[in-house]
């Protein structure tokens, strides 16, 4: 069965490109534009094998999203990757404290994205 991945980013370009790369590799993807929308997706019956979230987003940021997601029993242990940039060392640690599994540094290539997703979600 195809692994299913939730992608949360306020940039449609980033979201769509991640989605595209993952779909090429046979993953099923669901997109959300911010943390709040992401949480709504978790309320659905969906089962995600991995969640990729940006940090800085309107309405609800990625860190808050992770904290809230970890409170939902079904998503307590699901791998969550944070999209970050080199300049955001603090964010990456905040992410880990909130319960993120790892991070993807922007900008990234398709190979790098896939390598990280495979590392945590396969």
């Amino acid at each position, binding site marked *: 069965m195809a692994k299913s991945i939730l992608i949360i980013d*306020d*940039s*449609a*370009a*980033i979201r*769509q*490109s991640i989605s*595209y*790369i993952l779909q090429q590799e046979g993953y099923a993807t669901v997109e959300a534009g911010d943390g709040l929308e992401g949480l709504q997706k978790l309320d659905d019956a969906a089962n995600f094998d991995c969640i990729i979230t*940006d940090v*800085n*987003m*309107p309405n609800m940021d990625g860190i808050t999203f992770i904290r809230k997601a*970890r409170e939902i029993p079904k998503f*307590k*242990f*699901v*791998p*969550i990757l944070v*999209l*970050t*940039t*080199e*300049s*955001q*060392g*603090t964010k*990456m*640690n905040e992410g*880990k404290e909130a*319960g*993120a*599994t*790892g*991070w*993807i*540094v*922007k*900008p*990234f290539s*398709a190979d*790098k994205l896939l*390598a*990280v997703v*495979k*590392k*945590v979600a*396969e």
Partner: protein
Amino acid sequence: MNEKFKETFREEAEELLGHLEDILLELEERPGDLELVNAAFRAIHTIKGSAGMFGFEKAGRFTHDLESVLDACRSGRKDVDKHLIDLSLRARDKIKALIAEDDSSAQFDAEALALMEEFRDSAAEAKPVEQRIEEPPAPKSATVKEAPRAKTKEALRSYRIHFEPARDVFHNGTRVLKLFDELAALGQLSSIPDVSRVPPLESLDPESCYVSWNSILTTSADIDAVKDVFIFVESDSKLRIDQLDTIDGDDSGPRKLGEILVDRGVVKPEDLGEALRSQRRLGEVLVERKVVTDSELQSALVEQAHLKQAQERQSEGPSSSIRVSSDKLDQLVDLVGELVTMQARLLRTSTDIADTGLSSIAEQLDRLVAQLRDNAMSMRMLPIGSTFNKFRRVVRDLSSELGKDVDLVTVGAETELDKTVIERLNDPLVHIIRNSLDHGLESPADRTAAGKPSTGTVRLAAEHSGANVVISVSDDGRGMNLTAIKAKAVERGILSPQDQLSEADALMLIFRPGFSTAQNVTSVSGRGVGMDVVKREIDSLGGSVSVESKAGAGSSIVLKIPLTLAIIEGLLIRVADEYFVLPLSVVEACMEATSSDTSNGTHLVRYRDDMIPFIDLKEYFAVPGAAPDGRQIVVVNVHDNRIGLVVDAVIGDNQTVIKPLGRMFRDAVGLSGATILGDGRVALIVDCMKIADSIPEREQKARAS
């Protein structure tokens, strides 16, 4: 992917930049509004993060210092003033232009450079981030490397890895065991988990991690690749990676256990010295004295074994092995066979001459010849595993063709067998496996209905048993249908309807030529050839085939094959003036035969607490001459049936080089070959299986009761 999403990004950036303009203008009105500063930062941050992804590296680089300045503002390290807003607005226009022109040249124009300079200065003016000490390292990018390809002899390094995950590691969604799979993908890995901290169930938090590991990895990858495996967990777990000395093949032998323990800091040198003074095994002493824990000792022992193995692998690299044609190898084995025979003669002659000097030379030569023989034979021995692997493919293809789910389980792949034997086993095994899949295993639906797991299992196992290798193919299918087998045999004219057959005999019908019970002839196995070919091939290897089957639970076919076709360990015996060799592998005991044993008319003799049938080889082979007194009985065990062979004298062990029988003897029942003795005489090799087969059923029964 860049091109595909470039347009989306451009539109998005356009929108964000429009929004940014509004924010900046509003900010000019209310410079203290943190919400606005945050929004401005977010817009720039998004643009910067995405620009690089879609080929707008220039815009990305240009934005870098602007982002830093805005970051400083939102965390209160810098104030927003008119000048900053001016600069930001100009920067916004510049970004817009950079994205619009999509210019990939490396040069910024003067205006861009001036703006960047300004932002750099402005960022430098900001107060430094507080709590500098706790500032985490910048995130490293995780590069998950592929397993190193086997390039030209790369330098292998060994790393010792101690890994103790954080107690709450599961709560980050980390799959700890997977990290070890990543390590294993880098090279050769040995891991020892330390479970000593796992508490009893009453005090266990099932969602906490209590296990730590000591691993040794030998790889051509560098230490960064090893560290990358742990990139997401290293900040909150205990991780120590040490590179061990390079293995260079001609190193001074394996490291001592004590050195490893001291090196790891587990044992103090002075403790070691003391422990070494006792004459027992170091590890035991250290554990007993509680200097090391059992797990620490185990992991050090694993390290020792691992390094030794890695060293051996390194030194037996491609340069140290050569290809030899198997003909040459066969010639060598032949010559060694002759040599063994000559040596036996030399030994006998030297005994006759009774010259101590000569005897001592003969004995030393005897040891050398034995070593040479083992060596030559071992060159032809190959693990059967390579053949087993071929069957994986067969099973995979067949199972999809037949629509059945099948797991192939192999056991004993490391079992070594003469190369020529392995080659000749290939076809028979393919036939047997095909049969198991086609006839033996049910369809998933039938299996489920029968209360079995829907996936069937075919087990392919090899093991040494004396001078033989026993290979079995078992399935957990429906078992053989005896009624169908008998009916088919009658239909094929192999059996007459009146024949009463035991279950075992009925099962053996499947090895008769032209036998096939498949209801529908399939392309897989119902072609009427197969099992008879199997039996013929195994017979010609000097082996035997047997079948076991249990209705509903599966069946298994067992092949017993001699290890080698060339030399056997034999027991030399004499009947009148004829010499015979019994394969030592089947000999269980020798005992005196009393005349009451051999002439009580029952053809049964007491052996231990049992009555076993016996055969007088003198009668069996019709050797002329009167039977002497004080004869011997050699008890042989064939397929768990014991029989006694009555002989005139047991002479002793004998290494026997098997020579095929000449045409004249080819049909002789009960003989499988001949050999030349030390004194030049010929001895015949007895085929104990054939002789056992000739025991009438009633005696088998008598034995059983």
